[in-house]
Every structure is written in structure tokens, then in C-alpha cells.
């Protein structure tokens, strides 16, 4: 009888120690993780973005995204644009005529729209539904023009993968995590007056 009571007591003690250890472990893990979260910043979410000053418009963005249609699109900083008649981001290097004929356009999907503003200026806008993010216009604009066309991850399309597939394939390491409340790295935040 007393032997059984001993066993019972031992079991009870064992269970108590076990529970204490479990609670301590749980508190430890929870505390450590919470500490990591608050150590710097408020534990805000991150999203992926392209640093346009590093981007070389290699074309990997168009094909390495996990989405069938890449979340990367050409973005236009209108405040930087020269509004050229001969836009090297819009026209083929040797256009037959400076009009919106398909044979003159650089964009393989016809995603850039050209509208007349006033002599001699034209405005160029991106049709995101057609843009695949190949960066061909970005190269054309950067090579000769002001560089107002550049690639950005469009966050209404991005899946926010934990590891961005395009970032792995980016030859210039232009992808980086940015805070989700400042999700774009635009070339020019405000047009200078």
C-alpha cells in the first residue's frame, strides 16, 4: 500500500516537473520569438521590390516570377520624362516614321501608349494589362533618355513569396525587402518644379 503511494507520489512529482519544464519551454520559445520580433522595428511585414538604380533590365523578371504573368511591370515616373517626340523607349531604334504604327514600336506587346500633348511633346503611359515586364523599353529609355521608365514589382499582383524567385535569378542583386508600408522604390518621388 505504501509502496503504491510512493509510486503515486513519484509519478505526481514527475508530472509536475514535466509540466514545469513544458511551461518553461513554451515561455522560452514564445519570449525568444517575441523578443526577435520587437528587437528592431515593430515586426512589420516586408515585401520585395526592385532597386531601379541597380536594375539592368535583363528580362529575367518576365520569366522567373512564380506567376504566369509576372508581377513586375514597367513603371513610368512622369516627372522625369522628357516627353520626347522620338522616345527611345517607345520607338524601335530605326523607326520608319514617328507614329504609333506597330512596325515602329519597340514594345513587343504594344503596352506603351503614346498621346500627343502639345508641340513637340508626347506623353507615354503603360498599359499594365499588356506589359510583361521584359524591360525592353527600360533599356531603350535608359540608354538614350532620362530613365523615367523602370521596372517595379506591382504589389497588387505580387504574391509576396517568402523567397522571391526573381530575386534569386536577378543578376545585379537589385531585389531587396522593403517595408510593406513603403512598398515602392520609385526613381523620383515628386517631380521638381
Amino acid at each position: 500500500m505504501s509502496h503504491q503511494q510512493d509510486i503515486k507520489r513519484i509519478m505526481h512529482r514527475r508530472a509536475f516537473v514535466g509540466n514545469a519544464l513544458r511551461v518553461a519551454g513554451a515561455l522560452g520559445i514564445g519570449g525568444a520569438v517575441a523578443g526577435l520580433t520587437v528587437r528592431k522595428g515593430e515586426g512589420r511585414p516586408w515585401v520585395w521590390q526592385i532597386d531601379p538604380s541597380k536594375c539592368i533590365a535583363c528580362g529575367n523578371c518576365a520569366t522567373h516570377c512564380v506567376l504566369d504573368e509576372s508581377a513586375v511591370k514597367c513603371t513610368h515616373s512622369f516627372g522625369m520624362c522628357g516627353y520626347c517626340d522620338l522616345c527611345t523607349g517607345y520607338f524601335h531604334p530605326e523607326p520608319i516614321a514617328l507614329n504609333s504604327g506597330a512596325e515602329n514600336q519597340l514594345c513587343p506587346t504594344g503596352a506603351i501608349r503614346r498621346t500627343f500633348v502639345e508641340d513637340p511633346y508626347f506623353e507615354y503611359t503603360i498599359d499594365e494589362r499588356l506589359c510583361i515586364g521584359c524591360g525592353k523599353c527600360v533599356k531603350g529609355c535608359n540608354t538614350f533618355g532620362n530613365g523615367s521608365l523602370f521596372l517595379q514589382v506591382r504589389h497588387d499582383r505580387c504574391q509576396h513569396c517568402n523567397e522571391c524567385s526573381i530575386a534569386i535569378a536577378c543578376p545585379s542583386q537589385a531585389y531587396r525587402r522593403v517595408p510593406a508600408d513603403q512598398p515602392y522604390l520609385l526613381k523620383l518621388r515628386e517631380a521638381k518644379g
Partner: protein
Amino acid sequence: MAAQAKPVHLGVLIVAVVLVAIGVGAVAVWRIDWLGEHGSGLSDSFKYDLQKYQKIDPALFHYHLVAEMPIDMRDPRAIAIGLGDQILVAGDKAIYVYSPLLPGEGTGTSVSPRPLGEGPGVRAAGPTKAGRAVDSPHPNPLPEGEGTTKTISLDSEPYSLTVGNADHAFPGRIYVGMWDHVETFAPDGSHLATWSKLGILTSVACADKVVFVADAHAKVVWEFNPDGKPLGQIGRRSGSRQGPMFVVPSPYFPIAMGPDGLLRVSNPGAHRVEAFTLDGHLELAWGKPSERIEGFCGCCNPAHLAVLPDGRIVTAEKGIPRVKVYSAEGTFEGVVAGPESLSPNLAAATETREDLRLHPVSVAADSRGRILVLDPVARCVKIFVENQK
């Protein structure tokens, strides 16, 4: 017998299926190009390719490279020829003044021949080290002895530069275009004046009594007297159509003064070089947009101008880096330097490096007709001499 054999077959089948699936899965994963090493996989129609236009017919080269003069600057931006063919290079908040090039081949003056490839070049106590003669059968024209004669320090970054020539009211006076104003220096390097603020200055040039300042923001060329008193402007339309005559979509708006008394102004948005009299009348205009060698490529070209002593015009283009010579009336004559003789990554560099965007190659010509090309990526001055006929 058959009943016993069946489970064995089933087991083998399952093992086989599992092994095949593992194999297929392994191969599928193995073949993924995670690192993008095989490129984007896009067809050629999605690639921006200027290769075709970067090849230049060798017969069109009328000049050849004879020497390179390294510039010990992080960020050289402008070059000008001073009195007595001194070479001035601006950048890094300073102006370096180099002694003139030795009289070289193709100038009618004989030089003492030196062994090839080991020309002493600029051996200076100043900022430069040894220059390098390019492997060519011509004597090295690099200046001998002390290279840098003096250094003028500036308060901020210079963007353009010119020196009053012998005909100027103050020969040897140095006019430096900063971001938005002009600073003037006496030939000995002492500071003279800081002119009032303008827009975004891209180029300065001077005639005998007038100093021209190209302003890419206002899209006009301002005229000043040598002391900074405004005289007028070139490029403002009068009459029914107001507004600027020049189309300047980006900060490339060069000017140069010719010996014929006409100011050459690049109208970069129109891909034209225009010649104005000193009172602002458009005398002639030439040039057409084309990626082909005789035209001005891409957008906003020519990006820099110089005038040879005989009045021919030297143009420098960005995008496809090339330097060409035109007659004073605009007939294409020949090529000085193409993408191959200029820094190989110049075109690529302007794509990504913002600090280089504002200063592509700039050119200058000395009194012997040699063309000096400042290559900001290679950080050197490349010296080209005309081929002998």
C-alpha cells in the same frame, strides 16, 4: 501459384512507380534554372539590341587613337583647351591644368622619335601619373615632364568648362559652368567672380566679347559680357509662337564657338546642330535623327560639341558612344571614335549609374587639329589624330 505471384508483382510495380516518380521529380528540380544563368528565355523580339548600329565601317574612321592620358579624378566631367593648347579637365570639385601635348604626327611638325609603347607620358608630381601611348606606329604626343601645371579647386561640382582664346577680350580666362551658375578664374587660377544663378547649366562658350551659357532648364543660351553682365539670349521665339526654340528633354545642351564667328548649338530633341550669329539669328541647321552613322542616334544627341581650328564640327553622342566630324555646313565626313575605341561599358554604364548620366563623353580640339575625348568611365583623355591622306 498465380495468387502468390500477384502480390510480388504488385510490390515490384509500386517500387518501380515510386522510383520513377522520384527520378522524374529529381530531374525536374535539377533542371530548374534558379539562378537565371541561362538567361530569361525570352525570344529575341523581347531583347533590346543595338549591336547592329554599334558596328562601324572601318573605312569611315578618319582618325586614330594615339595616346591615352589618365586623369586621376573620381569623376571627370568636362574638358577644354586653353591658351597655348593647355589641357583643362574639370571634375571632383577642381580643375586640373595640364601642359600642352607635344607636337605630334599629322601636324606638320617633326618630333623626336621615341620608342613605341614606352613614352614617358605625363610624369607629374600632380594628380596624374604616367600616360600610355597606344600601340600605334605614330609618335606619342603626350606632354613630357611635369604634367599638371596647376590645380584650381572649386566649391562644388563643375559641369562644363571653357577658356577664352587669344581673340577673347581676356585671353586665358576660365569660365566654369557649375550646376546653376558660372564661376570665372584668371589664367593664373585666381578666382574672379561668381555669376548670378540661372537654371541648369550644361555648356559654356566664348567669343571675343561675349560669353555664352547654355541653360537646359530655361532652354535658352544666355549671353553675358566677360564680367557676367547679361546681354541677351538666343533661342526664344518671338512673334505669334512664344516659347523656346530648342527642344531640351534632358540636361544635354552643348554649345561651341566656331572660328567663323557662328555659335554652334545642339538642339538635342530635334537631333540638329544649329548655327547662330552673335545677335541670335539662325544661320543654318543640319542633322537628322538616325542610328546610322551619319545621323544622331537615339534621343538628345549630339550631347557634346567642339569645333576644329578649320571650322569643322566634332560631335559626341551618348547612348551609342561615338565621336564624329562634320563639315561646318553639316556634311558627314568621318568617324573619330566609336563604341569600340571608347570605354567598352560606357553605353551600359549610362544605363545604371546615375552619377554618369549627366556627363557622357566630352570632346575638345587643340590648335593642331587633334581631338581630345574625355572618357568618364575609363577616367582618361583619349587623343585622336587624323589619318594622313
